C-alpha cells in the first residue's frame, strides 16, 4: 500500500509540477495557512485547496493522509517524509525533489486526526473517480457510497456511460440506484426499480439505505424495502455461517499447532511436558530475534524463522531430555514436576534476557489484510495462512512418523521399549530425537502464534492447558485424534461464543471434555493393544 501511494505521488507530482509553477500565489498563502492552522480549522483550508486545485492537490492529500507531511521550521515550506532504503528523506510535496540536509530537528509534523483523515479519504475518492486504474476507481466509488450527495451523484452520472470496466460500472450503478431509491421527488416506480436493484447487493451502506427507507411514507416503497432487506439478510446469513466456520477452523488450527508438539512429547513419549508452552514461547522469541537481525527483510523473515525456531526449540528439547527427562523413565508423574520447574526457569530466563515486556513481531506484508470475497465475507490472510501451515506441519509430521526410519524407531520404542532395545535400536538416541522433534514443532508453532498474539514470557502459559485438553480429548498417542480434537473444539467454541459469550463458551467446552472423558476414558481415538497400558 505504501509503495502504491509513493508511486501515485510520483505520478501526480510530475503532472502537477507545471501547475504548481504557473499559479503559485493563492495556493502558497493557503499552504502557509495550513502550517499554522489548528486541527479544527484545517478542513476549510483543505476544502479550498481541493476546490481551487483539483487533481493537482492529490499528492499533498495523500501525504497528509499517510501522516507524512512536515514543514521546514526555517521557511515554513511543506515537505513529505519518505523512507528510502531505511533512510528518512524529505521531498518537496509537489516536485518530489529531495530537499537536502534536513534532519528530524529541522522539520515539524503537520498533525492529522480522524476527522481530517475521513475528509481526505472522501476528497481523494472524489478526485479518484477518474483515476487510471480500475481498482482505484472501484474503491473510490465504494468509498463514496456512505456519503452520496448531489454533487457526487452528478459526477458519477456523468462518468457512468463512458465507464469501460464492468466492476466499476456496477459499483457506479449501485451508487445511482441508492441515490434514486432515496430521492423523494422521483416517481415511485423508478424508486421501486432502484430498490429491486439494491436487493442484489450485500454492501453495508445499501442495507443502511434500505433500513432508512422502512420509514418512507409510501407503503409500496416500505414493502419493497423490507423484501429487499429480507433477501439480503438471507444471503448474508449464509455467508455469516461460512464466516463462523472459518473462525472455528482458525481457532482449531491454532489449537492444533499448539498441541501437536505435545502430541509427540506427551502422547508418544508419555512425558507430561509442562515446559511445552515454553517451547512455543522460545519459537516466538526466535521469530523476534530473526526480525531484529534482518529488519529490512520482514517479508522473508518468517521463512528464516521457521527453521531457526525448529532448531532452537528442538535443541532445547534435546538438552532437557538429556539432562533431566532420561533420568525419569517410567515415572510419568515425576516428569510433570521436573518439567514444571524447567518451565519456571525458562520463563524467568526470557524475562531476564528480553525484559518482561512484550516484544514486537511484525507481520509480513503478504500476511496482513484480508481476502475480501464479498462485502459481508472476508477472510483474514494471516489466519488463512496459519490454517494452511498447521495442516502442512501436521502432514509433515505424519510422514516423518510413518515413512522415515526415525519414525519407525520412535514408534517401536514407544510401543515396546525393551524389545526395541533388544533389536538394536538406540533407545537413548531415539528418546532424545523424539523429544527434540516434539519441541522443535512446538517452536514452529511459536512462529505462527507470534503473528496472532503477544510475544512475552507468559505466551506459553496461555496455551499449555488447552494443549493438554486437545491431546487428551483426541486420545493420547494418536496424531489423527489430535487433529480431529483440535478442529472440533475450535469449531464448537466459535459456534457457542455468539450465544454464550467467550467465557461461558470456554467453560462449557471444558465441562464437555470432562464428561466425555468419563464416557470414553481414553479419548476420541483410544490407542489399542499392549502399548496402551
Amino acid at each position, binding site marked *: 500500500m505504501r509503495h502504491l501511494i509513493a508511486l501515485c505521488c510520483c505520478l501526480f507530482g510530475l503532472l502537477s509540477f507545471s501547475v504548481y509553477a504557473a499559479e503559485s500565489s493563492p495556493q502558497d498563502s493557503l499552504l502557509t495557512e495550513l502550517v499554522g492552522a489548528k486541527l479544527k480549522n484545517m478542513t476549510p483550508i483543505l476544502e479550498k485547496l481541493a476546490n481551487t486545485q483539483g487533481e493537482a492537490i492529490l499528492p499533498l492529500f495523500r501525504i497528509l493522509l499517510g501522516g507524512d507531511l512536515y514543514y521546514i521550521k526555517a521557511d515554513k515550506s511543506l515537505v513529505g517524509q519518505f523512507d528510502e532504503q531505511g533512510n528518512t528523506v524529505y521531498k518537496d510535496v509537489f516536485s518530489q525533489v529531495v530537499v537536502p540536509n534536513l534532519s528530524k530537528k529541522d522539520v515539524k509534523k503537520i498533525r492529522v486526526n480522524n476527522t481530517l*483523515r475521513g475528509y481526505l479519504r472522501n476528497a481523494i475518492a472524489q478526485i479518484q473517480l477518474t483515476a487510471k486504474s480500475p481498482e482505484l476507481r472501484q474503491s473510490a466509488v465504494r468509498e463514496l457510497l456512505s456519503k452520496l450527495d448531489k454533487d457526487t451523484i452528478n459526477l458519477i452520472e456523468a462518468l457512468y456511460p463512458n465507464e469501460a470496466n464492468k466492476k466499476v460500472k456496477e459499483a457506479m450503478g449501485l451508487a445511482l440506484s441508492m441515490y434514486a431509491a432515496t430521492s423523494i421527488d422521483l416517481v415511485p416506480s423508478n424508486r421501486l426499480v432502484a430498490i429491486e436493484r439494491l436487493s442484489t447487493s450485500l454492501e453495508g451502506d445499501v442495507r443502511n439505505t434500505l433500513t432508512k427507507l422502512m420509514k418512507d411514507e409510501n407503503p409500496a416503497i416500505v414493502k419493497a424495502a423490507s423484501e429487499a432487506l429480507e433477501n439480503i439478510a438471507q444471503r448474508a446469513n449464509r455467508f455469516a455461517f461460512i464466516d463462523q466456520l472459518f473462525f472455528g477452523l482458525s481457532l482449531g488450527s491454532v489449537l492444533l499447532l499448539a498441541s501437536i508438539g505435545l502430541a509427540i512429547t506427551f502422547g508418544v513419549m508419555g512425558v507430561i511436558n509442562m515446559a511445552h508452552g515454553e517451547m512455543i514461547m522460545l519459537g516466538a522469541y526466535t521469530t523476534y530475534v530473526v526480525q531484529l537481525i534482518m529488519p529490512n527483510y520482514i517479508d522473508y523473515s518468517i521463512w528464516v524463522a521457521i527453521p531457526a525456531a525448529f532448531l532452537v526449540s528442538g535443541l532445547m528439547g534435546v538438552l532437557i531430555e538429556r539432562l533431566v527427562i532420561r533420568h525419569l523413565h517410567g515415572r510419568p508423574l515425576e516428569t510433570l514436576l521436573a518439567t514444571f520447574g524447567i518451565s519456571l526457569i525458562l520463563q524467568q530466563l526470557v524475562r531476564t534476557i528480553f525484559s518482561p*515486556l*512484550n516484544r*514486537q513481531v511484525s507481520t509480513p506484508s503478504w500476511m*496482513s489484510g484480508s481476502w475480501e470475497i464479498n462485502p459481508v465475507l472476508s477472510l483474514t490472510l494471516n*489466519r488463512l495462512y496459519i490454517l494452511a501451515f498447521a495442516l502442512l506441519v501436521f502432514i509433515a509430521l505424519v510422514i516423518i512418523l510413518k515413512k522415515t526410519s526415525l519414525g519407525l524407531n520412535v514408534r517401536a520404542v514407544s510401543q515396546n521399549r525393551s524389545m526395541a532395545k533388544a533389536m538394536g535400536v538406540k533407545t537413548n538416541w531415539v528418546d532424545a530425537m523424539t523429544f527434540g522433534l516434539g519441541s522443535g514443532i512446538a517452536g514452529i508453532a511459536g512462529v505462527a502464534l507470534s503473528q496472532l*498474539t*503477544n510475544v512475552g514470557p507468559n505466551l506459553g502459559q496461555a496455551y499449555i492447558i488447552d494443549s493438554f485438553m486437545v491431546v487428551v480429548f483426541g486420545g493420547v498417542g494418536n496424531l489423527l485424534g489430535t487433529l480431529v480434537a483440535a478442529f472440533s473444539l475450535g469449531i464448537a467454541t466459535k459456534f457457542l461464543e455468539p450465544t454464550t*459469550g467467550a467465557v461461558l463458551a470456554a467453560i462449557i467446552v471444558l465441562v464437555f471434555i470432562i464428561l466425555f472423558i468419563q464416557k470414553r476414558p481414553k479419548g476420541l481415538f483410544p490407542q489399542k493393544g499392549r502399548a496402551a497400558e
Partner: protein
Amino acid sequence: MKIKMLTSAILLSGATLMTLPSWAADTIKVGVLHSLSGTMAISETTLKDTVLMMVEEQNKKGGLLGKQLEAIVVDPASNWPLFAEKGRELLTQEKVDVIFGSWTSVSRKSVLPVLEELNGLMFYPVQYEGEESSKNVFYTGAAPNQQAIPAVDYLMNDLDVERFVLAGTDYVYPRTTNKILEAYLKAKGVAAKDIMINYTPFGHSDWQSIVSDIKKFGGEGKKTAVVSTINGDANIPFYKELGNQGISSEDIPVVAFSVGEEELSGLDTKPLVGHLAAWNYFQSVESDANDEFIAKWKAFTKDSNRVTNDPMEATYIGFKMWANAVTDAGTTDVDAVEQAMIGQETPNLTGGIAVMNKNHHLSKPVLIGEIQDDGQFEVVWETDGVVAGDAWSDFLPGSKDLISDWTAPIKCGNYNTKTKTCSGQVY
C-alpha cells in the same frame, strides 16, 4: 527419632525467628510493592524502575530531611494474597515510611486492610475504577471522570459518534467504568440499542468473532466507536485482529483506557494509526520537564528505546508530592505527611500543575491521543484546564451521594451527604 525431633524443632524455630526486626539505620525507607514476576510483571517492572530512579535522583539532591532514601524492593509475584503479606512485611519488618505499589485493583484491595491496620502510606499510580478513598492511600492515577467521561465526550462532540461498543475484560475496572459510561451515555440521550457491551476473559486471544460483531454493529449506518477497557495482554491480539479485518480508525475508532506507549511497544502500530487512547500523560507531549524526564529514564534504563507512560508520570507526581510533603511536615510520620499531602502542587510533565485534593485524588489534565506509526500518540484533544479526580462516581446509584474529604471536620473517605454519616471506617 532424636534427629527427627531435632530437624522439626530447627525447622519450626527457624521459621519463627526468621524475620527478626532489622536494625533501623538512619535512612528513610521507601517500599516498592510491584510484581516482578507473573502476569503483571510486564507492566509493573517499569514502575519499580521508576521509583528506583526517583530515589536515586532524590539522593543525589541530598535525600530528605538530611537523610538518604533507601528503596526496599519486594516481589508479590502477581499473587494477590501475597500483596497483603508483602505489604505487612514492608511495614512491620522493614519499617518503611512509604510504599509505592500495586497495579491491579485486586492487589490494592488486598493490601488495603493491612495499610489501614498498620497505618501505612501507599501511593497507587494506576488509572482505576474509583469507588474508594482510604486515608492511607493516595491515588495518583485517573479516576473514571478523568479518563472515560472526557473520552466519550470527545467521541460524541468531535467525532459525532452515535453508537458505542463498550468492550472490556471481565473484571472490576471495566465493569464499573462501563456501568458509569452506560449511565452517562443514556443521560446524554443515546438509546440502549446503540450501546453494545461485551466482556471477555483475561488474556483472551481469539478475537475473530467479537471483532466481526463490532464490524457488523458499526456497519449499520450510524457512526460507531469502540470504548475499550480491555486489559493488558489481550490488547495485542485484539488490535491485530482489528487491523487484519480492515477496521480503520476513520470507520470505527477505538478509544482505549489501558493502552499506553508501553503496550504499543510490543506491537506493529502501522495498521492502528488513528485509534485513540485517553490518558493524563503522553510521552509525545513536548515540554521541558517531559524531555528531561524521558532523557533521565533512558539513561537510567540504559536503553534508548524505552518508552514512558501515564502510570510512570503518576508515580513521578506521587513521589515528588510525597517528598515535598515530608519536607513540609518535617517528619515521615504517616498522619503528618497525610495532612501535608493535601493541597500539594507539583508540575505535571505535560504542563500545568497537578494538585492533591481532599479526597486523595489528583487534579490533572485529560489528553486524548491518536496512535502514530512510530508507537507514540499524537495529542488531538485536551481539556481546557485540569479535572479533579472524583472518588465516587455521580453516575452510579450506590455512590452518587458519597463524597470523600480527608480534612477536618468530615475526615471520611465515604461520607454520605444525605444521611450525613461515614460508614465503616474506624481510625
